[in-house]
């Protein structure tokens, strides 16, 4: 099946030509198919899964994860990792909630505090990786513990109870707009924003470039350092937003807010088709990946299975996703290196 363009090129011919190209394109579709299969599975094995009410619950649960996963994805696209995203969410969420508790009557401008905090925390990561030349695992492993520690020190053993939070915050999170939870709308908006940025902004495109072939990036004059720094800042900002929303959602904000979210966010990212080797994948896939995880959680609960199967599934999913991506990448690199034409005899 092909159409012809103006210059005689046969469209979609190249898509079918080889596995690598096809695989890259199909990665997101694959996740969607997987999600559908999951839904079918849970619908068959439980009686309560296949209901509109349940779908709303899943979407609600997934919303914050979607935002965190978008944040993580931006960094992963550049061939780096951010293991501190949970800690960033926790610190930004706690400080913001605490601030709100101390300044009753504050309005939605509170969100800005969370965003700025997140951006700063992301900036530190970015500086360490881009300019300190730290491997991203070392840098973010370190900042993860530092940020958690700071949260702890800041809290001085207190927690912020729901009653101390401004009512608009608590109610806003639970509110419905045209029957859709507001959280879901925020998540959708975030996905759209990030997707638009990555697809249309020159800076967004360079993020893909840097992850796809850093050496070529240098050659093209791309400022790799700045691009990676920006990726971390953007990630931190979104993490701040996610932390704020999470704090609003749980109401009682403790210092262990969003513990372990880095693994979940990462799992959503790799399941969603963003290669951990950088340069490929899109945000819609990531959102679907987050939905997959939320669906699995939900399904497990409805099936009465203990919650810690989730960790096992997450880990296995990462291993599988990495395997698939590495195999694809291996094919791409092999073809990329090129082979010679043997013996041109005139």
């Amino acid at each position, binding site marked *: 099946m092909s159409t012809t363009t103006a210059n005689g090129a046969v469209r979609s011919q190249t898509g079918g030509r080889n596995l690598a190209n096809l695989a890259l394109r199909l990665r997101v579709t694959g996740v969607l198919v997987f999600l559908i299969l999951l839904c079918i599975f849970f619908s068959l094995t439980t009686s309560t899964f296949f209901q509109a009410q349940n779908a709303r619950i899943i979407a609600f649960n997934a919303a914050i994860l979607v935002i965190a996963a978008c944040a993580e994805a931006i960094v992963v696209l550049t061939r780096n990792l951010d293991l501190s995203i949970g800690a960033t969410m926790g610190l930004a969420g706690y400080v913001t909630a605490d601030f709100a508790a101390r300044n009753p009557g504050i309005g939605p401008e509170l969100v800005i505090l969370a965003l700025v905090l997140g951006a700063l925390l992301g900036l530190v990561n970015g500086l360490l990786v881009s300019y300190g030349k730290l491997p991203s695992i070392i840098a973010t492993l370190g900042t993860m513990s530092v940020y958690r520690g700071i949260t702890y020190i800041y809290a001085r053993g207190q927690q912020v109870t729901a009653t101390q939070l401004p009512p608009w915050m608590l109610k806003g999170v639970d509110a419905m707009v045209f029957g859709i939870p507001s959280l879901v709308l925020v998540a959708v908006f975030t996905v759209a924003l990030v997707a638009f940025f990555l697809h249309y902004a020159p800076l967004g495109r360079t993020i893909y470039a840097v992850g796809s072939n850093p050496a070529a990036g240098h050659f093209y004059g791309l400022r790799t350092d700045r691009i990676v720094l920006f990726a971390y800042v953007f990630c931190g900002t979104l993490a701040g937003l996610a932390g704020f929303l999470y704090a609003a959602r749980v109401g009682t904000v403790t210092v262990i807010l969003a513990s372990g979210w880095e693994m979940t966010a990462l799992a959503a990212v790799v399941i969603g088709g963003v290669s951990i080797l950088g340069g490929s994948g899109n945000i819609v896939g990531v959102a679907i990946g987050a939905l997959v995880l939320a669906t699995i959680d939900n399904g497990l609960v409805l099936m009465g299975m203990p919650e810690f199967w989730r960790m096992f599934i997450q*880990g296995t999913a990462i291993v599988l996703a990495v395997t698939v991506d590495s195999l694809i990448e291996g094919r791409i690199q092999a073809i990329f290196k090129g082979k010679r034409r043997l013996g041109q005899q005139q």
Partner: protein
Amino acid sequence: MKQRFSFSFQWEQMLFVLILLAAAWSAQLSPYYLSFEQILNSTRQFIILGVMAMGLMVIVILGEIDISQASTLAVCTVVLSKFSAAGLPIWLALPVIILIGSALGSFNGILITGLRLPALAVTLGTMGAYRGLAFIIGSEVGYTGFDDTYMWLGSSYIAGTAVPTSLILFLLVAFAFYILVHRSVYGRMCFVIGNNADVARYSGIRVPLIKIAAFALAGAMAAVGAWIFVGQYGSARGDNANGMVLPLVTAVVLGGVDINGGRGKVLGVVLALLLVGTLGNGMGLANMPGPTQTIVLGMLLIVSVLLPNLVRQRSSFRIWSSFRTRGGRVPVK
């Protein structure tokens, strides 16, 4: 490259000085510090860490990484709990969990060498998968019914003294690793692979085997750590050693092992463990809460890699440009 070697020598000296400083600080913080028993007892804080760090060290020298060790430990502790509940004698249970630990480690190794997957990503996945496995096997309740034979290693002392038995084990392990890393053919090959895996391969070294062996060894060390763990804490649960990744990586990196591979000393890691232990001891005596201690650890991790990087960026410029004029490689054509 002489600069590189002298730098490494200074590193151990620096660690030693830091340990003394940390000890002085701890002593000043609390009168309880300077007692022999207290210090010996406090070593328990880092013995489990130390045994596992030895295994991780070899992997890092090879130029790889493994962040799933702590999860492997958890699998081993819950398996031990199953064995204990079933009444299996320890001398039977122990070899089995060492096998299990090695198998889990080898799985990592096979994925990394056979399928050529990036070590960080793979062990990120197995970290979660093994942890989940530990929960599945162990259930959320946790087991505390270990009998004395299981708990012997982690809780006993050498006849009549205040020396923990597990400390002796750690010293033995450290010595064994010293022999392995610095005196054996295997260790030599690890250093070569970490410096330049291609040269290693072209020189006839069977790189995949060596790597898989290193990962298996790290898993086995996690199993040994599990044995000490059940003795020291008397319980086994899926979340055992959760978060041990940070001190593990810190100990290795702080010990002067280059995260990019090819360089490192067992003595350095032992000193780093001592430093971390002394600091932890002092912070505990000062009643610093856990998360604060984690901040210190996190900063240590960052600084111990950042500092050499910054120094290298300054001086590498000079070294590198002097190489280019020294009859180095001429570009082909």
